[in-house]
């Protein structure tokens, strides 16, 4: 007979309320599982695909354009969906007439509300991260130069808790079946209104999370390529959104019955801190100004290190006159080279012709109202061995050009400029100079003067080698204005 082994008494379960974050975690888990935001996730995803993903994919794979587009449209997509769903969740106890029933639960009302808000926010952030991950992943896959711009993504992420807090507060304070739709549409209207009031670069309304740069020019391929993306305005926007979130959540904890004395004091402190943060951020946004690189800079938040240009190795075409572009625009190099080839082949080695063509950064200047002046940084020609500095049409705001449109724009503007330097005139050329330029640029049909057109057609009909030989021999006279139309071969 052997003695039975001693039986250890079962460990006494620790009450959930005594485990660190046990009760709160369980409450949060329940809210996560039964949250109305889950129902709107497919809608948000579809909207993101229709309004943001498709539009961004229509742009060339440039981080600046895609990230800035994503910020504006992402905020617009998630604002009504998150606000509406949060209002639905926030009004739950009131709509079901359960306010009295849940008064006796273990957790104060404010804590229960915070758990529901956190669950709503969590699902919204999960959906957003999936959407932005798909967009950024596709951009990486397409070989965009440089790294992702995280500040625009951070602004949208910071707006989600604020939207959820707005909807939740509206739903909790005014529980009705009409609250979710009306507050969702009102939030969208408020966003659109905020953009209407932006006038110039010192506007307080730039604090709106829709704004990713100078509002009037929108997503611009010319910024954040040669110089870093400035985090000044995004920092102010994130601070504003965090402050707004704190104010809205704090307000929920202020009424009697939302919790004990210390809890309500905590809510008051959060509200005050939020007001301070939001007010400061708005004031900072009002001190913004458009810098020469096309970004909004705020002196109190500005880091001088961000003014240094980004180092890069240009991608160049083959001689006779190499065309060198920033690697972010490498996909445009074949098109630009093809557009300039007829001009460069004719003028290479001639006096006044460049030895290389480099892409220049765009420089920006605030004009009256929302006007913004954009030009190439530095003089067009520089150095003892002339280097022509070009500003690609794709660096300017506006619709993305197709390849054929880009060819026409480059040949018409940049090709004409280079040729004008060789022929020795500005835009006001004499008839012979006009005819030579029209023949080389292949714009004979656009000439309005029939005599110039006839001479240009005659010159254009010559073999390229013959035209070049004539130019080598007669360029000095042509530049001096001593060639008449009749002397053109």
């Amino acid at each position, binding site marked *: 007979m052997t003695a039975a082994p001693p039986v250890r008494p079962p460990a006494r379960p620790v009450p959930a309320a005594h485990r660190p974050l046990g009760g709160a975690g369980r409450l949060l888990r329940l809210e996560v599982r039964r949250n109305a935001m889950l129902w709107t996730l497919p809608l948000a995803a579809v909207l993101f695909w229709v309004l943001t993903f498709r539009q961004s994919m229509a742009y060339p794979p440039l981080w600046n354009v895609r990230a800035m587009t994503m910020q504006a449209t992402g905020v617009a997509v998630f604002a009504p*969906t998150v606000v509406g769903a949060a209002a639905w*969740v926030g009004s739950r106890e009131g709509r079901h007439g359960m306010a009295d029933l849940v008064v006796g639960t273990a957790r104060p009302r404010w804590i229960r509300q915070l758990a529901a808000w956190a669950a709503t926010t969590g699902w919204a952030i999960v959906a957003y991260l999936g959407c932005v991950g798909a967009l950024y992943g596709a951009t990486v896959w397409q070989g965009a130069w440089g790294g992702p711009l995280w500040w625009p993504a951070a602004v949208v992420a910071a707006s989600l808790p604020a939207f959820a807090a707005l909807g939740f507060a509206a739903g909790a304070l005014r529980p009705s079946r*009409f609250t979710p*739709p*009306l507050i969702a549409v009102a939030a969208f209207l408020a966003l*659109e209104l905020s953009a209407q009031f932006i006038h110039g670069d010192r506007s307080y309304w730039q604090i709106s999370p829709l704004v990713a740069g100078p509002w009037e020019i929108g997503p611009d391929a010319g910024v954040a390529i040669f110089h870093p993306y400035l985090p000044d305005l995004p920092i102010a926007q994130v601070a504003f959104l965090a402050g707004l979130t704190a104010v809205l959540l704090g307000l929920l904890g202020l009424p009697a019955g939302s919790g004990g004395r210390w809890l309500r004091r905590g809510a008051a402190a959060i509200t005050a801190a939020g007001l301070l943060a939001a007010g400061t951020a708005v004031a900072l946004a009002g001190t913004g100004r458009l810098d020469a690189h096309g970004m909004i800079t705020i002196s109190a938040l500005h880091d001088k290190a961000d003014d240094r240009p980004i180092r890069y190795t240009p991608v160049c075409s083959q001689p006779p006159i190499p065309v060198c572009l920033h690697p972010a625009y490498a996909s445009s190099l074949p098109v630009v080279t093809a557009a300039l080839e007829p001009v460069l082949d004719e003028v290479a080695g001639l006096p006044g012709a460049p030895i290389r063509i480099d892409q220049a950064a765009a420089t920006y200047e605030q004009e009256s109202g929302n006007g913004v002046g954009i030009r190439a940084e530095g003089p067009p020609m520089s150095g003892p061995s002339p280097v022509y500095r070009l500003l690609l049409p794709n660096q300017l705001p506006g619709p993305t050009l197709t390849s054929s449109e880009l060819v026409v724009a480059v040949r018409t503007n940049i090709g004409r400029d280079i040729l004008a330097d060789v022929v020795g005139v500005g835009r006001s050329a004499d008839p012979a100079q006009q005819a030579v330029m029209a023949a080389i640029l292949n714009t004979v049909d656009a000439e309005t003067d029939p005599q110039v057109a006839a001479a240009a057609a005659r010159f254009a009909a010559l073999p390229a080698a013959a035209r070049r030989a004539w130019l080598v021999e007669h360029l000095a006279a042509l530049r001096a204005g001593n060639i008449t139309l009749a002397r053109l071969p």
Partner: protein
Amino acid sequence: MLAALVPAGSVGPRLRPGLRMARLHLASRRVSAALAAVAACAVALRVALHWHWDAYGALQLPLIFETACAAAIAVTTASPFGEPERATGRWLPILRLGAVLALAAAAAGALAAAGTGAHLAGGTLEVLRNTAGLTGIGLLCAAMLGGALAWTGPTVYLMIAVYALYTQWHGPALTTPWIWPARPSDDTGAALCAGLVFGAGTVLITMRGARDSVART
């Protein structure tokens, strides 16, 4: 059902029980709150039209208020009674139809009146078309998702329509008549699409009512 609704001894003219039933139906759907929301939208639109808007903002503005009205109308379809109400008589579809038509007419009329004498982009015809179409989307959503979540349809459609308006400036333009707010007010195809959606939503909500099994969240 009528007999149950009419207290004993209070039988008056023949119309009185019908009117009382209609009033109770409207009260159960919170129609008065919906009318208040419609009136608030009209007042807000009127106030907003006093400001100067750029072309893009001017086109968006009425659309946003039309969406708010349509969402409010769609939300009224939610029934607090569910199955018991469906079993009570044959008048329910007529009551649903009457409520929807009256609210849609009130919304279109209020918004059109708000634009009288001001520069309302698209004019009254566009208000009528957009409100009808958006209401139709809300009613279809109510039939499929339930009255409580019916607002999601018009709200989502609003964002797509705003994007379509944006593409009129920053192409490629979305020109399908199914996105009618981005089409001119005299576009027949857009009017037909909006009318079709409104008709489908009205028929569905009249015959079946809003779906009861809404998310119990």
